[in-house]
């Protein structure tokens, strides 16, 4: 412990120097390239913060099994529908390839995962997943909820990953309208509050009018996301860049705060299959549909 007032002048300079050294160290960490920051983050998360993260995983499991069984069941059924539909697509694809004499592609899969939310300011628009490189997850793996695309894996550890959702300022997805009439890039538009966040389809051709209510899906260009994952529906025009292109506001198909369980895509050498048929009639069955089916 120290005296209430900081002693002699020499002591004050020593303290100032020490504080400056730690400030420089913090600045160094801040400006460090992402690839160097990752191991530091992982090391702290894997040691000091591990009990807290494990506790949330346990709480999510208990909460889901005790409080919200119908919702969880509906979510699971919806995700199962995605997987099942994808399996039938894969089978159809395999048969067509056989008929055409083409070599079969390597099997692809989605890995089910639990989502761990982060409540700190710096963790906004990000979440943790309890799957990692051991499960085949890579940086860039798409994260899909029952309603559509939730986000993308940003960092992949051995057994856990850090992902961003669509509200993150760095989120981008190559997109198109469901009928293929307009292509562009979907990015986030942050509101004053998280609940006001929306998506925007930017770079759409000027000569094409996209009507409100039109569904926007991933186009598959760039190979990051499979083609055909629902992103949202067009709400209206955002702006028209005179004579060149238009941008539209899109109501997102998935609200990140409502998601607890997801599917994470495992990237393959040959790219992704077209998932358009999965959301051709809207999102896969959700709570009401599932309850009705029972």
């Amino acid at each position, binding site marked *: 412990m120290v005296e209430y007032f900081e002693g002699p002048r020499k002591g004050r300079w020593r303290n100032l120097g020490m504080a400056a050294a730690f400030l420089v160290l913090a600045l160094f960490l801040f400006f460090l390239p992402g690839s160097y920051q990752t191991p530091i983050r992982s090391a702290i998360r894997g040691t000091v913060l591990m009990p807290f993260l494990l506790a949330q995983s346990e709480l999510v499991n208990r909460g889901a099994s005790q409080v919200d069984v119908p919702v969880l069941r509906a979510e699971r059924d919806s995700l199962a529908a995605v997987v099942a539909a994808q399996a039938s697509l894969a089978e159809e694809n395999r048969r067509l390839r056989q008929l055409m004499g083409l070599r079969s592609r390597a099997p692809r899969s989605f890995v089910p995962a639990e989502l761990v939310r982060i409540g700190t300011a710096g963790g906004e628009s990000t979440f943790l997943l309890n799957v990692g490189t051991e499960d085949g997850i890579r940086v860039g793996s798409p994260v899909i909820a029952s309603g559509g695309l939730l986000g993308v894996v940003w960092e992949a550890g051995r057994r856990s990953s850090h992902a961003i959702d669509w509200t993150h300022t760095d989120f981008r997805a190559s997109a198109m309208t469901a009928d293929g009439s307009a292509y562009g890039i979907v990015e986030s538009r942050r509101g*004053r509050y998280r609940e006001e966040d929306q998506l925007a389809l930017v770079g759409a051709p000027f000569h094409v009018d996209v009507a409100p209510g039109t569904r926007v899906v991933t186009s598959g260009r760039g190979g990051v996301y499979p083609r055909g994952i629902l992103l949202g529906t067009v709400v209206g025009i955002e702006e028209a860049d005179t004579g060149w292109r238009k941008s539209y506001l899109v109501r997102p198909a998935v609200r990140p705060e409502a998601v607890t369980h997801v599917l994470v895509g495992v990237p393959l050498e040959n790219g992704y299959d077209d998932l358009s048929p999965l959301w051709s009639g809207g999102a896969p069955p959700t709570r009401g549909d599932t309850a009705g089916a029972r």
Partner: protein
Amino acid sequence: MKGGWPFWILIVVLVVLHFVLHLSFGFGIEAPDLLTVAVLLGARQLSGGRAAAYGFLLGLLEDAVSVSAFGAAAITQTLIGYLGARSRDLFVGDSLLFLSLYLFLGKWARDALYYAVAAVVRRGDAVGALLLQAPVAAFYAAISGLVAIVVFRTLTRSR
């Protein structure tokens, strides 16, 4: 408020509680920022250099779950730790009124610094964030800190 091991147990409890609320339960602004409260209270017991180191370490813990602004909390808490320690040169007192004002201003300064450093938290206009949301969060943190201090003083029978 006198230091000693009971005081540092209070600090550890605040830090653990912060991560339980924000990581284990996943609360955002619904839970108070007890980490900043811990930095501010602890800094008053340390020299400027040590308080900066202490703030840096707690900030680094917070940064471990931040992919977008890694290091921002470390920068902010280092500065807050140092300024908290140096505040002894300007303000003397352990009354509840003084400590609550100290926590309120400290947390407000922390949010303003973090807003300046970390682009990821920028949402809406700066005026709304710094003059509306930040004071509310600061008030919440100050009240929480005050409750912690009262409980601590009751348990340890200190003034």
